[in-house]
């Protein structure tokens, strides 16, 4: 997995460097919108390749774990759920679910933490700061 980032950087670098010419390198007597992206792209390609080669030579293994996928999946779940039941309830439900199913904590404690956090979010973001939070289907009401 240690190869993913340098590899990705090389690809991104190529994209940036190619697109840079379209944004112009020098325009109206000064550096154009493409100059910095070109520098960024070239740096990314060079040092991406250097990192890949070095890793290949040292044969260093990265300590990747499948568990790292759980938080990512959780956030995707929260985003989807927020369109149905609203953002704050989604976050509360997520905390409870995480603690019960992943951490194997008791229901009561998990529910308390989940509802408590959701309540604090509600007080701070909705009541106090008046952030327009997604309400999901509640918005129809």
């Amino acid at each position: 997995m240690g190869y993913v980032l340098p590899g990705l950087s090389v690809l991104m670098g190529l994209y940036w460097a190619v697109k840079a010419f379209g944004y112009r390198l020098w325009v109206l007597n000064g550096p154009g919108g493409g100059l910095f992206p070109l520098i960024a792209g070239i740096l990314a390609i060079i040092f991406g390749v250097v990192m890949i080669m070095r890793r290949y030579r040292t044969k260093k293994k990265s300590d990747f774990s499948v568990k790292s996928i759980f938080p990512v999946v959780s956030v995707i779940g929260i985003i989807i759920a927020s369109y149905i039941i609203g953002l704050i309830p989604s976050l509360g439900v997520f905390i409870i679910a995480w603690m019960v199913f992943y951490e194997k904590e008791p229901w009561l404690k998990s529910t308390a933490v989940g509802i408590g956090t959701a309540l604090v979010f509600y007080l701070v973001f909705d009541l106090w700061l008046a952030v327009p939070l997604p309400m999901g289907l509640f918005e129809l009401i």
Partner: protein
Amino acid sequence: MKRIRMMVLLAAVLISMMPLMAQGNSDIAEDGTFHMSKEARIIVPANPGGGSDISARMIADISNRNHLAEKNLVVENRPGGACAVGYNYVGSQKGDPYTLLSLHSGNIIVSAVNGWEQQWDDLTDIIAIMAWDDVTLCVRTDGPFSTIDDVIEYAKANPGKLKFGSDQRGNTSQLGFELMKKYIGIDMNYVQYDSSGDVASALLGGHVDVGILNPGECIGQVRGGLLKPVVTFAPERISGDLFGDAPTFVELGYPEISYREFRGLSGAKDMPPAALQYYEDLCRKIVETDEWKTTYLEANNLQPAFMAHDEAMEFTREHVEQVMQTFEEVGYFDLLN
């Protein structure tokens, strides 16, 4: 535990649905007039504290305090994408009579010049233009120039030397620059900054020779004797002592150099005509209040204006036309890919 949560949830759903059931689904009365049944939101496509935010809050405050509308107006900031996020959000609420937008002509120009897929008039309907935000050219008081003639004379004698401090390219400030270049026949350097605060800062430090600013953005420095407005881009002089001495380009014999920025209220595209009429009347009531005239117009050095929907749409289209044509002529779009 689970059951209690379910019951609470159910109760909450039922309670919050009650007004919906009582209200029915149409806000248009039998005689065809519109009546507000809930709060309306004014979307500000920028952060709090900016010009669009202040005007939206003024409109909401005056309306709410004097009960000019049946329900309250509330302000909601949706910044990002130079105003594209706010505009597209309002566009997504097509037909909704409860989504309004703080109108600033600069944002409309951005939509046209940047060639958005959906233009300002695809996303919104202008309800009313409510104030002119005129544009002036300022110099430093202790700098080499004291009148617009000095500036023009210097620019004519030294082509490509005068540093013209302005906003980012592709907006109304560039229009002023291009019009001056074309009709006076002078060659200047366009130096672009992120905000008008940065323009004022560079002008004070002597890093640029002239700066293009709205009166509201430099009134403190003008009163303090640090900056001086030498000319205004509006067709008529700005009222008041501070800016009243600055002539217009029309007076100077350049009738083509004339444009104004403006502020007001827009709404979601295709809201019912009765609702549009309702908000138009509301805007008319607001601009007639003393609070609007003193705490908003005077304090921010804006000029009074009122144009209702039809006239405002027509006026705005002409303004956009002027900008696009000028930018086309100077080859701005050829520079972009």
